[in-house]
């Protein structure tokens, strides 16, 4: 019987090719807009380290101005970065399983036999790679214990290793980083968590840095952060020591807490430290020491911006209009052929058979709409990608990283289209099945 219904549907399309094409187009447009928007939204709201996101916590403490919150729009949040002093305290704690304090610096690599290369670098502690599951192509990181004095070790990104050493295993090679001698200890494999959850300051979708050096090199060489440095307190800063002792925040701090007990102990560590510092005159605001897991961190930092939420709403409104349109067209089309349906009913077709027959017709439209919708969405995403790439002059990072249309996206698009259109087709198919056949038989 299914084959018969399919044949009838195809005949029905050839009877009204125009209206059928319009329906497919309407469904396809609705699907395309939805899929495009959701692809970007999904990429934005993704959790790139979901498998351990409930073990990783950003550490923040509110050291800000007693009169003004760090973020006036969200006064409940501490500043997202920490002072040198507080970060060092967390880094010295033995409670967390792993801990990382870090910031970014703008550096130049020379002495590798190539032209001097501008190398944005992350100054970070040794747990970084294991904590964030950064994959190594060659070698490894440096020991978390060896911080003072810091070893002259450097880890390169795969891309940087290709630029400097043509992609060979460069572990053991010596190069000059900001005119200091460093030894390559590891080369990362391709790694691009989107969003870059562990540091959302320089744009949520920026690629990771080109190199990694032990954190202590930053202060040792008086390297300023190339990310954000925020100060609220009028303090005279006349040298590096003044700066390190100041209430300026510039360091990202993360801890790995494997279980609830550790989490509780870590919270106590922070609270005790806060109380001690508070007595000494610091932390003028109410106590607000936070351990924030990755999911909440991405929400707190508003990785998904309001524009995108508006666009998701718009996409669904558009899909609704397309589907209502389809319901209307289907209804008109089906009722237009009600006389024929009446004949079929008189010849013994049950309501259910009529309903199924029309639903098969709808399903074919849905599949065609989904296919065309996916194609349009892919084209649309390519256009958006092009728009962003052009603006970025070929640089990696930013929104164009969000426009990849993957197989999961295609699958969802098809499911969305078929479910939505079938839902839209249910009423017309039901309605035409309910139409009393007698009315249409006595025509003229």
């Amino acid at each position, binding site marked *: 019987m299914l084959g018969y219904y399919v044949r009838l549907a195809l005949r029905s399309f050839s009877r009204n090719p125009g209206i059928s094409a319009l329906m497919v187009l309407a469904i396809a447009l609705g699907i395309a807009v939805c899929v495009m928007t959701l692809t970007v939204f999904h990429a934005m709201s993704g959790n790139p380290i979901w498998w351990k996101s409930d073990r990783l916590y950003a550490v923040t403490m509110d050291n800000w101005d007693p009169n003004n919150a760090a973020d006036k729009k969200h006064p409940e949040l501490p500043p997202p970065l920490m002072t040198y002093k507080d970060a060092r305290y967390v880094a010295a704690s033995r409670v967390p399983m792993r801990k990382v304090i870090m910031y970014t610096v703008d550096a130049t690599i*020379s002495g590798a036999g190539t032209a001097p290369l501008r190398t944005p670098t992350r100054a970070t502690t040794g747990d970084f790679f294991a904590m964030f599951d950064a994959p190594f192509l060659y070698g490894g990181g440096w020991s978390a214990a060896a911080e003072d004095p810091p070893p002259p070790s450097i880890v390169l990104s795969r891309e940087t290793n290709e630029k400097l050493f043509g992609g060979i295993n460069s572990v053991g090679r010596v190069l000059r980083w900001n*005119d200091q001698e460093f030894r390559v200890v590891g080369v990362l494999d391709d790694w691009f968590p989107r969003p870059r959850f562990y540091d959302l300051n320089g744009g949520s979708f920026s690629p990771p840095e080109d190199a990694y050096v032990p954190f202590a090199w930053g202060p040792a060489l008086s390297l300023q952060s190339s990310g954000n440095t925020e100060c609220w307190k009028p303090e005279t800063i006349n040298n590096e020591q003044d700066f390190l002792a100041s209430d300026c925040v510039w360091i990202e701090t993360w801890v790995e807490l494997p279980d609830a007990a550790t989490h509780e102990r870590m919270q106590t560590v922070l609270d005790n430290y806060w109380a001690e510092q508070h007595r000494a005159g610091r932390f003028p605001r109410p106590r607000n020491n936070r351990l924030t897991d990755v999911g909440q961190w991405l929400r707190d930092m508003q990785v998904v911006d309001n524009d995108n939420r508006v666009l998701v709403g718009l996409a669904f409104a558009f899909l609704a*209009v397309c589907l209502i349109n389809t319901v209307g067209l289907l209804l008109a089309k089906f009722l237009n052929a009600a006389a024929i349906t009446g004949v079929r009913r008189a010849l013994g077709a049950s309501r259910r058979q009529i309903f199924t027959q029309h639903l098969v017709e709808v399903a074919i439209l849905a599949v065609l709409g989904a296919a065309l919708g996916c194609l349009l969405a892919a084209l649309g995403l390519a256009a958006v990608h092009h728009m962003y790439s052009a603006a970025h002059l070929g640089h990696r990072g930013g929104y164009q990283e969000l426009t990849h249309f993957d197989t999961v996206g295609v699958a969802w698009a098809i499911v969305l289209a078929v479910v939505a259109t079938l839902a839209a087709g249910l009423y017309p198919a039901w309605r035409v099945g309910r139409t009393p056949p007698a009315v249409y038989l006595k025509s003229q």
Partner: protein
Amino acid sequence: MNLHLRPILSALLRNRTGAVLVAMQVAIALAVLVNALYIVTQRIEKMGRPTGMDVENIFVVQSAGFTAHYDLKSSIQQDLAWLRSLPGVIAATPSNAIPLSGGGSSQGLTIVPGDRTRDNSFGYYELDEQGLDALGLHLVAGRNFRHEEIEPPITVDDAGRFVGNVILSRAAAKELFGDQNPLGKPVYDTLKHQATVIGIVDPAMNSWVDNEHSDWVFYMPRLTSSLYGGVRYIVRARPGERDAMIRLAEAHLSTSNPDRVIHFVRPMTYFKDLSYLSDRSMGIYLLTVTGLMIAVTCLGIFALATFNVATRTKQIGTRRAVGARRADVVQYFLVENGMITSAGILAGCALALATGYYLSLQYSLPRLNLYYLVGGVLVLWAVGQLAAWQPARRAAAVSPSVATRTV
């Protein structure tokens, strides 16, 4: 003119599903159209704000020294001398940051030393005597920095040092001094160091286009105080010469000093476009989807009208046979369509206002301006009538003889 509203209405009510569906589309389309247009206009206004700068003709060079031999001060002198010697260059200045780029520094200023009641923050730029000229800024009061006023870069040992003179943007001056004349008056940094206001520029913008007060700016006469050896030059080329100058600068500066590396030489439009990219793409996306939505709604109106005409051929013929003119038939269908569209528009107005209210609450957008609602209503009404026009004409072409024909 007798529009026969009642019989049309009762005919409509007897066959209402199609009409209700079209009215729903009209309602959603109106709500989206009104709010989308409102958001888009705001973005266009935002992108069109005057920057006060000659954005089209400016390019930016960023470099960083990386060896112990590198001397920031002499490097800046050499680079500037070379840049200024180019015939295609109007002016060049070192700067700590690039306006409109999203990156830069800001700090609080007060007119009473140590006043902590106002939490304001002004983007600032360290420029030399060619600074205003290099940015293309317009001095509306006071004077520019003089060569001898340009202070040396701050170092790790005197990082808290302020400057003797500053130039304010008019908006910054208004924030600090209200309606008083700020020229010659003192301002203080957070450490209570004093500087004198010597000039006012207008308009002006700082680095952050999304900032509520992106026109709060001040300029300091000082060589850039970047502590990690990096320096940025802002260079203004003669109209039409920018791209040639960029190529020249790239070629020369990347080899002129082996102790530093050139990060980039880019037109200022690059940074401006990047900063407004999300606004621009939001606008394009909103307009595209809204346009498509109206097209789809049109299609729905057209299809319903066509269906109504097709199923009433006989009735139309009968009307014609009993004396209705073509114009009467066209009018019948346009009035019918008008009723459906109007019902949708009525619901759409409520939906539009509710959406606008929700957006203003949820995303702190400003409340919907009612002019947009009126405009949206007119647009949808006109679009609805246009979409029904062709089917109505087709109805008018029905011959009166159908009435007498069987089968």
